[in-house]
């Protein structure tokens, strides 16, 4: 078969690229190694984790908050199998949705391992049966990433696990030790803390979610402690041992003293590495850099001019929506359009409760750049809507240019922060000033009022409700 474009990998980067290519009239194929489409995000990432986060949140509220709402129920019990089954069902429905979209857009789906024969020929090796070859004018590599591991600790997938296994455990851990206080560690840590596991997060840096503004890390630490997560920052893990039914994690604390943690599961969530295994990049004249990434230029073109790469296999944040933007970007670039991605305006989200979301510069980055900025913040506590729903944890922090008042960063921790951040992105895409936002009407009572108030605070320190 001859295609205009072949996409290798069907995650959010790959399938979006394929759909956009098809929309633009290109004959498109997509190759997926696994049985289901959707990649990490749909199968073992965003979607299943959010399914479990919501289930565990409901349970937690039933146990801890219903009474105050005036709902008396018998003490609820976790049916963990059902929880995991529901998650699997959500995943299945979502993945089926991608099959539907491929059909709708007349994209040929090939199941099997895609590998380069040369820069225009791709071999597809299915799990069973014979390998086939297709030829293609352009190729988009969208093979994503895999969880990283520590060199001294083998992931045995039984007691020492990654996020993939953590989403399909058969029992509720008694004590889960989470290595890494980043997004994945905090999300899955909170799932298990809510349903009764003792959770200890061991983080190498001096704060959790270290890539985000430090205020967010502080607030999330406070909120996480409330649900019983024990957070150990500035701890360098030195060994992880599976002792059968027990895992022993040793770490060095700030003073250099060795500390030991014992648990029945250890989740290694120290990040992800680009995944290019089996692609046979050399045959196409490609290679990876020292961090395993495929080198691309500003147009996401590799050094071989008909091959592009997007998402987690290239530089930049490993986020599903970043990959999606890049998928669209490449498809449009291929047909000669001139799209644009504003990388600084790709939001980052942590789906804990309260949620954390941010876009633009953090205060630390502005300090480092030497920018003159001002800060406006507003706590959820002071919001009517937050009081009504008992979601009073959180704060909105707006960073704006001292001179022009242009918004440089929006950081939100609180209920529905993940949805609210879109307003921050919109404002920043149009280079709105803090005063611009504070002069726009915000519905009352809503969580978004916190953004307006924080903007008022940034404008001339004149918030209304505090």
């Amino acid at each position, binding site marked *: 078969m001859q295609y205009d474009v072949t996409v290798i990998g069907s995650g959010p980067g790959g399938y979006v690229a394929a759909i956009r290519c098809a929309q633009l009239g290109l004959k498109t194929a997509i190759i997926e190694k696994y049985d289901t489409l959707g990649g990490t995000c749909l199968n073992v990432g965003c979607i299943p984790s959010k399914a479990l986060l919501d289930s565990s949140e409901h349970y937690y509220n039933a146990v801890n908050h219903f009474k105050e709402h005036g709902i008396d129920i018998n003490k609820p019990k976790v049916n963990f199998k059902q929880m995991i089954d529901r998650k699997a069902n959500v995943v299945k429905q979502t993945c089926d949705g991608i099959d539907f979209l491929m059909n709708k857009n007349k994209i040929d789906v090939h199941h099997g391992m895609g590998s380069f024969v040369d820069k225009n020929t791709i071999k597809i090796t299915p799990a069973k049966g014979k390998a086939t070859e297709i030829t293609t004018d352009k190729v988009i590599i969208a093979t994503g990433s895999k969880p990283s591991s520590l060199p001294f600790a083998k992931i045995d997938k039984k007691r020492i696990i990654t996020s993939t296994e953590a989403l399909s455990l058969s029992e509720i851990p008694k004590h889960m030790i989470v290595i890494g206080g980043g997004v994945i560690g905090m999300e899955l840590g909170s799932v298990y803390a809510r349903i009764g596991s003792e959770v200890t997060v061991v983080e190498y840096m001096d704060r959790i979610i270290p890539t985000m503004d430090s205020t967010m890390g502080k607030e999330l630490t406070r909120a996480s402690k409330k649900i019983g997560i024990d957070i150990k920052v500035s701890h360098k893990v030195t060994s992880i041992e599976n002792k059968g039914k027990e895992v022993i994690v040793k770490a060095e604390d700030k003073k250099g003293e060795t500390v030991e943690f014992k648990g029945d599961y250890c989740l290694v969530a120290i990040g992800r590495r680009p995944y290019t295994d089996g692609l046979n990049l050399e045959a196409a004249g490609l290679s990876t850099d020292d961090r395993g990434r495929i080198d691309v230029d500003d147009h996401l073109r590799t050094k071989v001019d008909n091959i592009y790469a997007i998402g987690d296999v290239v530089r930049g944040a490993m986020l599903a929506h970043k990959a999606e933007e890049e998928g669209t970007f490449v498809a449009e670039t291929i047909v000669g*359009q001139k*799209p*644009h991605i504003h990388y600084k305006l790709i939001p980052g989200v942590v789906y804990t409760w309260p949620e954390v979301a941010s876009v633009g510069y953090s205060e630390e980055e502005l300090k480092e750049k030497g920018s003159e900025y001002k800060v406006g913040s507003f706590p959820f506590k002071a919001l009517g809507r937050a009081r009504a729903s008992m979601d009073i944890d959180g704060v909105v922090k707006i960073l704006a*240019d001292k001179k022009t008042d242009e918004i440089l960063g929006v950081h939100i921790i609180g209920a529905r922060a993940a949805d609210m951040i879109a307003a921050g992105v919109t404002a920043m*895409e149009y*280079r*709105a*000033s803090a005063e611009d936002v504070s002069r726009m009407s915000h519905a009352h009572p809503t969580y978004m009022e916190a953004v307006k108030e924080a903007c008022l605070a940034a404008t001339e320190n004149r918030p209304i409700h505090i």
Partner: protein
Amino acid sequence: MSLEIKVPEVGESITEVTIASWLKSDGDYVEQDEIIAELESDKATFELPAEKAGVLKIKVQDGETVDVGTVICEIDTSASGSSDKSEKKEEKKESKSSDESKSSESSEPEKTGEVKEMIVPAVGESITEVTISSWLKEEGDFVELDEIIAEVESDKATFELPAEANGILKIVAQEGDTLEIGATICKIEVMSGAPSSSGGDAKKETKSESASAGGDSSSSDSYAAGHASPAAAKILKEKGIDPGTVKGTGVDGRITKEDAENAQKSASKTESKSEEKEEQGSAPVAGSRNQRREKMSSLRKTISKRLVSVKNETAMLTTFNEVDMKPIMDLRSKYKEQFKEKHGVGLGFMSFFTKACCQALLEWPAVNAAIDGNEMVYNDYCDISIAVSSPKGLVVPVIRNAENLDFKGIESEVVRLAKKARDGKLSIEEMQGGTFTITNGGIFGSMLSTPIINAPQSAILGMHNIVERPVAINGQVEIRPVMYVALSYDHRIIDGKESVSFLVRVKELLEDPARLMLGV
């Protein structure tokens, strides 16, 4: 000036209307297009907008019935707004329609009667004439003090000409004219008062702003002026239009999708001009016997004169050697990343060559010297000229005291000067006084050349292309990246011993860069 507002014709059968209500009071300041009254006819009610901004003088009161065509109020357009805010708004509105702007232009700032004559300034000791390369403003435009109104070219550099007063521009010398220092370039009819910075003139201003001005131009009201929305940015990019040349109609001058869609027509004048030029210069059709004649720029004229005179007036000779580039290339690939990370500039070959030349120059001072009449001038410092090809021709900015700079210092100077050269922003000072020149014909692929001395200097080093060559290393044939280097020198002051030894020294230092550090 007072403007009479009459009852407009609202339909063929309507002959009279009643003033239903005045929405503004007598003496109010009204803005253009603001609704000032509601009129009633026997068929419909309609609104009366102000035709101009100014102070309202009501002539016919509420409830009165008047014929179509009757003057019902006057607007005193010479009066200023009641507050800064309304004034600003008024200006913005005015800038929307160009014919409006003209009248407001003449009504706002007042002529003082003085005429400022601008003359060609003395730009450097050896420069006697300049050429007007382009006018950024048009005849009759309102220009502000210190605003750049023209680009002027001399044989050595390009300058920007700032306006010396606020007022109306009267152009004397046209584009392409060559003027002597002191000759009149233009006259400015000086006007007093604020030029209503974003007022009548705003439109033209943004029009003529060069691409580099971008969104943050001084004439914009807001930092966000000229910022394209995501969809608009994509459309502009596809059309190849610089957002800086598009007038945004969004809040504070932001460029909306609609602005971007309509952009072609309002694209800047200067841009369309350069486009025309590009079209003219586009690739000729095969088989065409068309011939084109273009005026030599003064820069090119001077270069040609100087090159010939150097050949005639010096005893120029060239000596060659070859350099095994492997050690430098190894060193570069090993530390390229770290260097870039630490210093923020790439580690190029220029720093190695400059360092090597400086060391060799200090050892062979004649190569760094010059002849002045019957004297020889020796320099105890190394000011290294680097030849940079700019869009306007070859220029040679100078790295001062290169012997004292480290690798980072040299690389950042190279980047800084090359960027300025490309943008035509080099000053005369930055190009004067070099003691030795390095030129790199290799970047265009040359393998051997005999560069011409950059007078009054006495020598020039030519770098070339790096090619793989079989060479004998310890009795073995090896493939090595080799660069031929050339030293052209003035034999009157530099003897063969010095020139050849100098070049050998450079070769030694490059083939074993550790010697650069040790000074051996």
